[in-house]
């Protein structure tokens, strides 16, 4: 789309029904992550074997004491979903912040320190093409063992590249612009120019990228836990719940359905907010 065709963004677009739903979903999930014990009194790690495979409330054999039923060990599915919010949001959040800081710093350095550093940093970024997230996570899991730290490390080590590329590209194009050259002529130090003149211009684009990557990271964390390389049992997580559910899908379909609903609702909400942010903050990114 040519720039002329992009409709002017209206501030009112931030308040759409989709956006409102997304915000409510994320607030609820954050509440689960912060204070799960206020949501449910059931124990997510221990159940009664006598009560295993209870279907959800409303189905024959189900009861309101286990609204979403129980799993093969008699654990309350709803409680496990509530407690599973924490690792998802925590890993996603920490990784986005760390990857963003690492990537932006690398991009600024590559754009400012001159050709040698630029070649080195962008070469490292290129290598990342051949070594994407899952391979990194598998290698790390084989060496340092599976767990949350492995998930975060793999997400940060593979997630910094887009931030670096974006920051560097913006920096290179901005260096030629008058307001930067004026700041240089006025005697501004490189650090001052980066922080006061260049970063503010990249922030909105970075915010959009970070929002989408947060959504991506929630999926990747649950994928790792699904593969058994992330959150370890008996700690509840959405991915490992689905992995357990695979073994008794025919007897207890609810164990395989609701954790997935939680993942999709969360990720979709983040993506919806990302789409709106993109429309409002940065029309240039449209269609990417």
């Amino acid at each position, binding site marked *: *789309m040519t720039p002329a065709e992009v409709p002017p963004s209206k501030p009112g677009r931030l308040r759409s029904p989709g956006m409102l739903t997304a915000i409510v979903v994320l607030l609820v999930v954050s509440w689960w992550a912060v204070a799960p014990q206020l949501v449910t009194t059931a124990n997510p790690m221990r159940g009664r074997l006598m009560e295993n495979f209870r279907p959800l409330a409303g189905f024959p054999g189900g009861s309101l004491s286990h609204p979403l039923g129980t799993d093969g060990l008699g654990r309350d599915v709803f409680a496990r979903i509530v407690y599973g919010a924490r690792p998802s949001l925590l890993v996603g959040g920490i990784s986005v912040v760390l990857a963003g800081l690492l990537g932006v710093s690398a991009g600024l350095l590559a754009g400012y320190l001159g050709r040698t550093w630029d070649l080195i940093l962008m070469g490292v970024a290129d290598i990342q093409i*051949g*070594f994407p997230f899952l391979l990194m996570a*598998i290698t790390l899991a084989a060496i340092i063992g599976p767990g949350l730290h492995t998930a975060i490390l793999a997400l940060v080590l593979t997630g910094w590249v887009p931030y670096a590329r974006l920051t560097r590209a913006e920096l290179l194009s901005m260096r030629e612009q008058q307001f930067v050259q004026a700041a240089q002529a006025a005697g501004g130090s490189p650090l001052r120019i980066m922080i006061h003149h260049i970063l503010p211009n990249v922030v909105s684009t970075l915010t959009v990228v970070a929002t989408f990557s947060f959504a991506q990271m929630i999926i990747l964390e649950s994928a790792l836990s699904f593969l058994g390389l992330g959150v370890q049992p008996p700690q509840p997580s959405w991915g490992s719940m689905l992995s357990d*559910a695979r073994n008794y*899908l025919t007897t207890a379909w609810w164990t395989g359905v609701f954790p997935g609903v939680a993942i*999709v609702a969360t990720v979709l909400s983040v993506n919806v907010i990302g789409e709106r942010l993109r429309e409002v903050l940065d029309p240039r990114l449209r269609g990417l």
Partner: protein
Amino acid sequence: MSPRYFLRKLGQALFIVWGISTIVFVAIRLSGDPVALMVSDTAGAEEVQALRRAYGFDRSIPEQYLSFLQRVSRGDFGESLRFNLPALAVAVDRLPATLVLALSSIVVAVLIGFPVGILAAIRRNTLFDRIAMMAALLGQSTPTFWSGLLAILLFAAWWRILPASGGETWRHLVLPACTLGWFSAAKVSRVLRSAVMEVLSADFVRTAHAKGVPQSQVFLKHVLPNALISVTAMLTLEFQLLLGGAIITETVFAYPGMGRLVIQAVGTRDYPLVQSIVFVFSFLLVLTNLLVDWLYPWLDPRIARDR
């Protein structure tokens, strides 16, 4: 097209392969005793010593690095602890199954994504466009390991029309390929939609319209070829994501490919096998990248001229 362009891209690919080898080397060194990763827990002290000497871990780090690179270039990753065979051979044995899965997923993604993306672009801002793009956003937010479980639940457990797991016949391929392809169909349709919209507003399309070229001709001869250029790059990226996605999908459907094998290998601490599968995957990614880099000037002559 100058041969220099091809050589430069080849050099870049070799550089990436070297970089990956180095990352793996550093990772092994950082882990402490690499021999401990290579042997089973029951191995005796003598066996460990023998391995340490055989792999040269008693020598200096630079020496070790060089011999590591030599072994990698020969494709020698040691023996798989579980299969007692050369690890690379075990990995390559499972490669065709994974490639078949990734390629059929791409076909599914194209079959769904192309018509939807093109129609959405032509009928921009209609109900169809909105529903399609909403479905695409939903598709991109749904992890394959969940849509895979739902597919098993519906088609294998309840309706019993397709097998839930295994990989013996083409029927075993249908669910994994559709699960994986469905996920990328979402992105394919979104990218194609914006690519077509961008070309539709280009000057040469307006000119073609103005000089009276029929609608269908404008679309087939001018709009589509140009839109497909940007989609090609995206499809490569998508193929690479699908290779990664195969690791998850193969695990969901117990499909006997490299991806399921690597997860099992991590579980059994079969480190040489993990290492060789990671290498084979990386190598494939770099290779597809190189092929597209080489094809690109032919698709879009501007590239070779610009660089």
